[in-house]
C-alpha cells in the first residue's frame, strides 16, 4: 500500500512538469500582445512597453522564462500577474470560494444522486423510477447556462427567494442556487449510474446468497449491495470532484461567483501566463490527488483489490 502510494506520488512529477510546460507554451502562442493590450485602443508608448516587458520578464527567451517560473515555483513563488498582484494572492482569493461551492455541490450530488439511484434501482420500472428517469433526462439535455439563467430569473428575480447573485461566498444560503445548478448535471449521471449497477447487482448470485442466508434486508442492501455497486460511481465522483474544483466557468459567471473558473477565464482572455499556469498547476495537482484517492477507495470497497 505504502509503496503504491509512493509510486503514484513519484509519477506526479513528470506529469506536473509536462503540463506546466505545455500550458506555458500554449499561453504564449495565444495571438495578441498582452503588454500592448494594456493600452486599450491608445497607441502603446514604446519606452513604457519595453520597461513593462522587462519587469515581467517577457523580453527573455521563452525557455528561460519557463525556467525562471519553475525555479520560482519551487521556492513557493507563483510569480506576478499583470494586475500587479502576486498570483499566489489571486489563488488564495479564488480557491476557497470554489472549494466551498464545489464541496456544497459535491455533497448534493453525493446524497441526492446516490440516494435516488439506490431507490430507483431497487424499484426498477415502478412509478418513482419513471419520474426520476424523466427528470434526469431533462437535466442532462438542457445546457447549464439555460438552466442557470432560468433558475436565477425565476427563483432569484421573480420569486425573490434567494439573491440572484452571490455577494458573500461565506454565506451558504447564497451558495445554494449556484451549488444546485452546478450539481444537477453530475447528479443526473450519478443517479443513472447508481441505478444501473444496483439493479444489475440485485440479480447477482452473492446477493441471492445473502438473502437466502436470511440476512435482514437492510444489511443486504446497505453492505453487500452498496459496496459493490459504488465502484463505478466512486470513479465518476472522483473525476467529478476534480472538475468541480476547476471551477465552473459558466455557473460562476451566471451567479457572479469570484472563483477559480472566473479567474482562469479572465487570465486566458488577457494572456496572463503566470496566472494561467499557476491555477492550472494547482488544478493538475488536485486531479492527480483525487484520482489517487479514488484508486485507494477501490481497495476499501472491493476486498479483491489489493495494492502491493
Amino acid at each position, binding site marked *: 500500500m505504502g509503496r503504491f502510494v509512493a509510486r503514484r506520488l513519484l509519477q506526479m512529477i513528470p506529469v506536473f512538469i509536462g503540463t506546466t510546460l505545455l500550458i506555458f507554451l500554449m499561453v504564449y502562442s495565444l495571438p495578441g*500582445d498582452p503588454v500592448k493590450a494594456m493600452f486599450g485602443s491608445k497607441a502603446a508608448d514604446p519606452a513604457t512597453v519595453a520597461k513593462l516587458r522587462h519587469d515581467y520578464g517577457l523580453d527573455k527567451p521563452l525557455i528561460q522564462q519557463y525556467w525562471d517560473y519553475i525555479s520560482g515555483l519551487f521556492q513557493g513563488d507563483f510569480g506576478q500577474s499583470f*494586475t500587479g498582484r502576486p498570483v499566489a494572492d489571486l489563488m488564495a482569493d479564488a480557491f476557497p470560494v470554489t472549494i466551498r461551492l464545489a464541496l456544497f455541490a459535491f455533497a448534493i450530488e453525493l446524497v441526492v444522486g446516490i440516494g435516488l439511484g439506490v431507490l430507483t434501482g431497487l424499484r426498477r420500472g415502478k412509478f418513482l423510477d419513471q419520474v426520476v428517469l424523466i427528470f434526469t433526462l431533462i437535466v442532462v439535455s438542457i445546457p447549464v447556462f439555460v438552466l442557470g439563467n432560468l433558475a436565477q430569473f425565476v427563483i432569484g428575480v421573480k420569486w425573490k427567494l434567494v439573491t440572484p*447573485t452571490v455577494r458573500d461566498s461565506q454565506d451558504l444560503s447564497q451558495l445554494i442556487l449556484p451549488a444546485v445548478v452546478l450539481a444537477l448535471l453530475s447528479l443526473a449521471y450519478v443517479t443513472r449510474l447508481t441505478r444501473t449497477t444496483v439493479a444489475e447487482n440485485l440479480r447477482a448470485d452473492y446477493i441471492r446468497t445473502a438473502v437466502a442466508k436470511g440476512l435482514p434486508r437492510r444489511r443486504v442492501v446497505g453492505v453487500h449491495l452498496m459496496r459493490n455497486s459504488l465502484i463505478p460511481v466512486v470513479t465518476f465522483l472522483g473525476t467529478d470532484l476534480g472538475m468541480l474544483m476547476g471551477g465552473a466557468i459558466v455557473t460562476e459567471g*451566471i451567479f457572479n461567483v*469570484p472563483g477559480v473558473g*472566473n479567474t482562469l477565464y479572465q487570465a486566458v482572455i488577457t494572456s496572463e501566463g503566470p496566472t494561467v499556469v499557476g491555477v492550472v498547476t494547482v488544478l493538475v495537482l488536485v486531479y492527480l490527488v483525487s484520482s489517487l484517492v479514488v484508486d485507494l477507495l477501490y481497495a476499501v470497497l472491493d476486498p479483491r483489490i489489493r495494492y502491493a
Partner: protein
Amino acid sequence: MRGAKSAKWVVGAIVVAMAATACGGGSSNDDEGNAAVDPNGVFTYYNTEPQRGLIPTNTNEVGGHYMMANMFRGLVTFDINNKLQMAQAQSVDTTDNQHFTVKLKPGWKFHNGETVTANSFVKAWNWAANAKNAQLNSSWFEAIKGYEDVHPEKGDPKSDTMSGLKVVNDNEFTIELSRPVSTFKERLYYDAFFPLPEAFYKDPKAFGEHPIGNGPYKMEGSWAHKVELKVRKFADYKGDDKPKNGGIDFKFYSKDDAAYADLLSDKLDIMYQVPNSQVGKFKDDLGKRAISQPYGGNTNIGFPLYDKEWGKPEKAKVRQGLSMAIDRDTIAKRALKGSKDAATGFTPKGIPGWQDGACGEYCKFDPAKAKELIKQGGGVPGNKVTITYNADGANKEWVDAVCNDIRQNAGVECVTDAKPTFQEARDLITDKKLSNPFRMAWVMDFPNIANFVTEQFRTGAGANDMGYSDKSVDALMNKADEAKTEDEANKGYFEAEKKLFEQMPAIPLFTDHTVAGYSKRVQNVKIDYQRQAVWTEVEVKK
C-alpha cells in the same frame, strides 16, 4: 460585451421563464424624485474589477477609473453639460495656450489629513512621466516641456523632473508646454493629472491597493478583490459637489447579465450599461428607471491607407460610395434596437464643438450615387470588402448589417472577419498588417471635438490606425490648436473634421448610447456623457 455569446440563449431562457411564471413584461410603478432621502444612505454601483492597482497614472480602463473619479479631484472637471469647471484649481490661466498658471483653492486635504499643495501635483506628474516608473498614462504629459528628458524613447531618463513644471508657492505652479495646445486645460481633467500625497511615494504598490485621494469619497476597509470596493463620504472634502449620499459600494461583476438580474431585484442600484441582450426590453423592465441617452463614443470603419491598393488617391471615391450604401438609420433602429444613433460625422452630438453635418451628403443613404462613386473610383480593391472586427465585443450585429447593406446597395461582395479577442484584432490593426477595412471605435478622453478629430486623424497620431496623412487637414488642426479662444478652436477643429470627408479615411457609422438603469432604492440619478453617474448627486431613499 461580456456574455454576448450566450445572449440569445439567455433571452430564450427568460422568455421561457416569463411564460412559466405567467408574467408579461412587468411595468412597475416608480415614484420618482419625491421620496424621503437618507443623507447617509449607501448605494451600489455596477463595475468590473480594476485591471491594475489603483494609481491614477496607471489607470486607463473604466473599472479603475470609476474608483479614481470618486476618490480624487483634479484641477478641473466637467459638469453634466460637458462644461469645464474648476475643481481643485482656483484658476488655470493662459494667454498663449503654451504657458499656464495654476492657482489652487487652499485648504484642501487628502484623506489622510495631508494638505494638497502645488507640489502634490508637480511631484506626481514628474513621477508618472518618468520612464522608469512605466506608467500607462505617461504619454499624457508628452506636451509638457522637458518630457523627453524624463521619458526618452530609449535608455535611461536624463532627469527626474520636467523643466516645464515650476512650483511658485504652496498654492501656485506654472506649466510650460513645448508647443501650444488649445485643449490642454480640458486634458487636465484626465485621471493622469490627479495629485498624489507623500504617502504614495513610500510604497506605490500598497497605495494601489488602498488609494488616498483628495476627492469627495474615501476608501473604506480593504479592497475585496473581484467582489467589491467601498467608498464613503469624506467629511473634510472642500469641493462644491459635496455628496448627497453616504457612500458607494462598487460591485464587481464578470458578466453583465448577472448584474442585470441583481438590478431587477433591487440588489444593485445603478448599472451604467445594461447588457446587450437586454437593450430591446430594458425599458419594459425598468419603466421610468431606464435611461437611454447619447454617449461620447463612436463606431467607424477604418481603411488601411498604408495598403498599396487602398492608398491610391482615387479610392477616396470608393470609400465615399461605400459610406453612401449604408442605411445607418435603419440599422441603428432595427439591428441595434436604438442603442446607437446614425452618425453625421465623427464627433457625437452634444460634445462641445459638435456641428451637424460634418460628413454631409456622404453619410446619406443613396444607393444610386453609391454605385456611381464606386465606379468612378475604379471599384473596390479585389472586388470584395472584408471587414475585420473583434467578436468579444457587441459588434457582430452591426458588422453583419453593414456588410449586408454594402452587398445589396453597392453591389459589392462583402464578408466579415471576426477575430476572437479585442487584443488579437488590435494587434493586427496597430501593426498595420491588415489590407482590408476594420472596425474602429473611439471613446472620448474628454468632451471636446478635438479629441475626436486629432487623436485619430492627425499624421502619426497615437490612434491613427489608418496611417492617414493629409497636409491640409494637419494644417487646419494645427491652426485650431493655436486658437486663442475655445470657440475659435472648436470651429477650427470642425473645419478639419469636414475636410476629412474629402478623403474619407474612415466611414463614420454610429455614435453610441448609454443605456443605463437604476433600482427603486435610489433617485436623482443622472448619467453624463462619459457614461458615469453624477455620483455625488444620487439620493438614497429612506
